């Protein structure tokens, strides 16, 4: 979830003017390790992005070139790979359709959160971002708790009306997968997959930034069968 902050940084390059789709997909094993997949899909705004990329600057901000973005992505990947408890980091960048996919394995959710916090702070010019102190994932072996960092709400206050409209048109999909069936969950907006092993919540990025509780969910798993 903290990757939403990275997304905010990424979107700042595009003045938050693009219609976006985000998929935040965590697969958690019984032992607490797992895989994070984070996908940003800007393909529905590729004309706009190409036109922005053709400019030197927009709204007083320098527009990065594709090599600069590639460099930044590579730097993010390198830093994340070096963090304790993180392995197999891959980032796929599709600069034709503007789809970016991050995937990494983690030994436990705490390691994942700490790694992302560290990398975000390293990449950001701001240090000691108080909003990053908050843990948004916890796992006790039978119960998973998810929420969203407040920083996204703070950032949204600066948005222009047109940007807000575009964010409302976007999609944010959060999926949590497990190795055993889900028994119940608290968030009424969530849906359970037919195989009962995954929980999904769909919203739009704007709603997410306005209500940090929208993705908050406590997911209870059925006991492990011996």
């Amino acid at each position, binding site marked *: 979830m903290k990757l939403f902050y990275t997304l905010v940084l990424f979107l700042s390059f595009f*003045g938050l*003017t693009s219609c976006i*789709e985000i*998929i935040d997909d965590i697969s958690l094993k019984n032992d607490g390790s797992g895989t994070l997949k984070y*996908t940003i*899909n800007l*393909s*529905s*705004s*590729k*004309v*706009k992005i*190409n*036109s922005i990329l*053709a400019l030197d600057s*927009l*709204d*007083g901000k320098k527009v990065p070139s594709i090599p600069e973005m590639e460099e930044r992505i590579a730097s993010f990947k390198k830093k994340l790979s070096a963090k304790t408890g993180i392995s197999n980091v891959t980032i796929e960048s599709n600069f*034709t*359709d503007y*789809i970016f996919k991050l995937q990494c394995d983690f030994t436990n959710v705490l390691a994942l959160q700490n790694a992302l916090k560290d990398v975000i702070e390293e990449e950001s010019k701001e240090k000691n971002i108080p909003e990053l102190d908050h843990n948004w994932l916890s796992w006790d072996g039978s119960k998973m708790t998810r929420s969203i960092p407040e920083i996204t709400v703070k950032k949204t206050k600066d948005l*222009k009306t*047109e940007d807000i409209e575009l964010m409302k048109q976007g999609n944010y*999909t959060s*999926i949590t*997968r497990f190795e055993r069936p889900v028994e119940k969950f608290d968030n009424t907006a969530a849906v359970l*997959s*037919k*195989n009962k*092993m*995954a929980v*999904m919540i769909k919203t739009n990025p704007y709603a997410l930034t306005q209500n940090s509780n929208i993705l908050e969910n406590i997911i209870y798993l059925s006991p492990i069968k011996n």
Partner: protein
Amino acid sequence: MILRLQMKLFPVIAFVLFGGFVLAQKSEELIPKDAVTVFSINNITLLQKVSLDDLVKYEFMEEVQQELFDGSTSGKTIKESGIDFDQKLNVFYGRGETHEVQGFTFGIKDKKLLFEVFDDFEQVKSPYPGTEFYTSYFNNLIISGNSALLIRVEPNMNTVDEMTDSIWYARGNENPWYSEDSMDEGIESDEEVLEEEIYEEMDDESKPGSGYDFPSASENPNEKNYYELRDSVQIVLQNQFLTGLCEELLIKKMNLVKFDARFAEQLTHTSEGVFYLDNSRNVQEARGLWYFQTMFPTLYKDMQEVYTGNVLLGDLLLNETSVEFKMEARYGEALGSIYQKMNDSKFDKNILKYINENNTAYFTYNVNMREAYEQAYKVIMPILTDERNPQMSANVLTIELLNEFVNKDALFGTYKGSMFGSFNGVKKIKTTKIEFIYDENTFEYYEKEVDAEEDMPIFTLGFSTERSDIPEKVLKHLARLTSRFQNMGDYWVYEDAILEAAPLYMISKNGMFIFTNDEDLAKNHSNGYGGDALSAKEAKKAKKSGFMYGQIDWAKAIEGFPRDFFTDQENELIDAMRGKTGKMELTTSKTSKDKTSFDLVYNFGGNYDNSGKYLLDLLNSIYVISK
């Protein structure tokens, strides 16, 4: 940085502050002959329409008042500035080989009130009889009788650098940029530049004292380092150029009115404002020509002669529901002969078929490239041939050989010189996007390409051709190279050509070759819009105009601007312009051997008290953008 900002703001402030006044006396006699561009404003008619009370309500006026009416004059308005509204206000700018001048001249009604406004100016002894001299930083206020000249003279940096280098080396110094000792102090890093800018922007009180890290002086404190020397040279040159200008203006009584009879004649017009631009002097001083000037001095001089007499003269007329800008481009015989041949062209009616009557903006351009080429060859080649320079001789030979060998019938048959362009607003265009499809059983997902639509401005650009076979040859070749180029029968398409997402269509029919991103035009109207093309009345206007005609439907254009492509400030301007409907139309006269006339008329609607106020609305919008 502040200095640069002031230089930039100087004419703007001048225009804004006094843009509403003038007519009668002698303020124009204080315009130096070095002025290349002058905008002279006739006060009375405009003032009848715009009250000063309204004027000072504008956002830009608040800023101007802060600029000139500082604390000691708070609460005052321009009404109390001592300006004589019966004289013309003349805003001028000129860049010469060694220095540039900018400023404005105006009449004075009450000197006491004037100096309550210009309270930063201090009087110095005037060396010129019958004048008073005041200075404030780099600005100089000269009063002669009931007129005043506010002027700033700046030496060009090339001149300053050249002289500084000369003195620097003559004193036995090393290269200031590369010598080991001076490397650190000679080259300003970005950080140093930033520090200087921050320092300049600080309030006086906030500026650090003597401990601030300026470029260090040399070992001998009595000897200037490179920057100090350059500053000194700049000041000396500034004074020298100002003295030269004042002697010419105040002793020899040579001003622009006497120097150029065309300007003097222009000043007799009773329009709200007159405009003067001496293009021949602009060409002479064009910075980009230094290489040409240095390497081929004779040629440069001869080319200057071609431009002799090249001047733009304009009149600005404000009416209740329109603003009209009439401009006359005058030129000498040599250039006139080329322009005249260029305009000896028959209007191609086929062009009009491809302009939709519901367009947002369009232009037509009609010149005879072949005739213009032949005439330019006749005029320019003798000048080039006279240049005794091996490099130029080689160039002349190349041009002569090309002239002999190139098939000019094919070249000018392909592009005759008639063209048009149109903007048809913003339309949805077909693109593709990637969607993620979810499996309900597992919530696993996969990518699928689906059709999508995005907004895109729709443009069409076309030209007349007698040799459509030549562009067709190019297209066929390109189609062999990439499958993105396809012949669709009535038109060609180049997939993903625009922003790597949208197709570009090419139509080669009816003696026209057209580029467009308008799918509807390519697929459904490759032979023209028929009944949906420009009305006969509109078409007649375009045909009747000289070499160019243009029209913009302002309301449609404003509504069609894609907001996402503009900054917040630009959007503020666009918002300010929304609801201000109207059409802007550009017509030109037939070109004669000595002049071409242009007429730009903006007919507007909306709720306006008068056109002067409308103009101020525009000015205020521009101010909001630039602040």
